[in-house]
């Protein structure tokens, strides 16, 4: 009987003590990654966006979320008259990871369909330009030969010019012309291919990120709006088990 009374007394003391502790406020400093735009719902009621909260002592439920991140649902103890730091890195959501994967695939597709052909066309255009300069130089050489022909006053020199020098220069010109024609053809073909691939890749839709975690998070607390607000519903996945 005495023992029973002692137990009851002890429980009453503990309850008084706990109640007293719970009513003394403590401070939590939140170091959350990402630090710039995270939000949290406190005790399932209050949606907040701040880095430090002062709360009555005792356990408090926090549901953290940030764009592209998963909701982290956890309970934090607030100690009276103390300031405690809490550090958390919000993990990326599955949707965001899938979105990133899709974006990577999209970018790779763009690279293959745009950048690579564009670079190939550019390189081919550079080669064509160089070959065109050589082609022009070869033609210029022939024009100089013609000018020299008109000015020469020695039959022997004219014969050497026509039968040796110009034969070699015409040969150079024909080779340069053939090379330039091939190069120009390749460049033209690549330009057409590039245009086609640009058009084709433009039809591929850009992946859109659907932040489902945001929908869930928005449903966790009542959001007062200009017309009084609405109630939203949602559920939270326990991250500790994932």
């Amino acid at each position, binding site marked *: 009987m005495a023992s029973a009374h002692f137990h009851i007394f002890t429980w009453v003391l503990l309850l008084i003590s706990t109640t007293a502790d719970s009513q003394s406020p403590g401070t939590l400093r939140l170091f959350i990654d990402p630090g710039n735009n995270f939000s949290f719902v406190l005790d399932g009621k209050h949606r907040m966006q701040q880095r430090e909260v002062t709360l009555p002592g005792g356990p408090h439920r926090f549901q953290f979320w940030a764009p592209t991140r998963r909701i982290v649902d956890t309970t934090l103890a607030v100690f009276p008259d103390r300031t405690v730091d809490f550090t958390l890195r919000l993990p990326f959501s599955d949707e965001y990871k899938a979105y990133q994967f899709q974006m990577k695939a999209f970018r790779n597709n763009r690279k293959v369909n745009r950048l690579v052909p564009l670079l190939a066309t550019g390189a081919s255009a550079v080669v064509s330009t160089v070959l*065109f300069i050589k*082609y*022009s130089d070869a*033609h210029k050489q*022939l*024009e100089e*030969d*013609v000018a020299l*022909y*008109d*000015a*020469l*006053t*020695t*039959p*022997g*020199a*004219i*014969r050497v*010019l*026509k*039968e040796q020098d*110009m*034969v070699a220069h*015409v040969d150079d*010109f*024909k080779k340069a*012309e053939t090379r*330039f*024609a091939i190069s*120009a*053809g390749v460049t*033209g073909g690549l*330009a*057409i291919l590039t*245009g*086609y691939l*640009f*058009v084709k890749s*433009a039809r591929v839709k850009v992946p859109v990120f659907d932040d489902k975690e945001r929908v869930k998070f928005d449903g966790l607390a009542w959001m007062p709006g200009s017309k009084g607000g609405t109630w939203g519903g949602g559920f939270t996945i326990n991250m500790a088990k994932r």
Partner: protein
Amino acid sequence: MRRSFIPLLLVGVLPLLFASCYKDEVAEADLTTNPFDPDYDGAPIIELLGDSTYKQFNNLGVIIDTVIEFKFRVRTDLFPSPTAYEPFGVQVNNGTEYTGPVQTPTDNEAFVLHRHVLEGSNYCMDVSIKVQGSSTRSYRFCATADL
């Protein structure tokens, strides 16, 4: 519709672009306008003025040969620039060559001699001019030895 137009535009524009880069070929065989060119085909640079047959004597007054002199005019006005030259002739019957004295650029009359001719016979010479050892296109002149 608009996007599919771009490749078509490229197909249309590129050939025009490349065609604009095309340059005419210059063939050496087409060059025939220089009077000093052996392949020259313009206005004749040598025009026959006349021919005369006469005997040649040595210092002792002995006849040493009978020749036909072909006198001709050289169209120096067609030369690209003033050039000294030598009259040059080749006898068609035996290939004997005759090279006359060097003419200044202003001399536009010259002659060549066909040697060892017989009275009443017809002789031809291929006449040209020589510059620095090489000859231009030749022109054939013929005449009958007539003393």
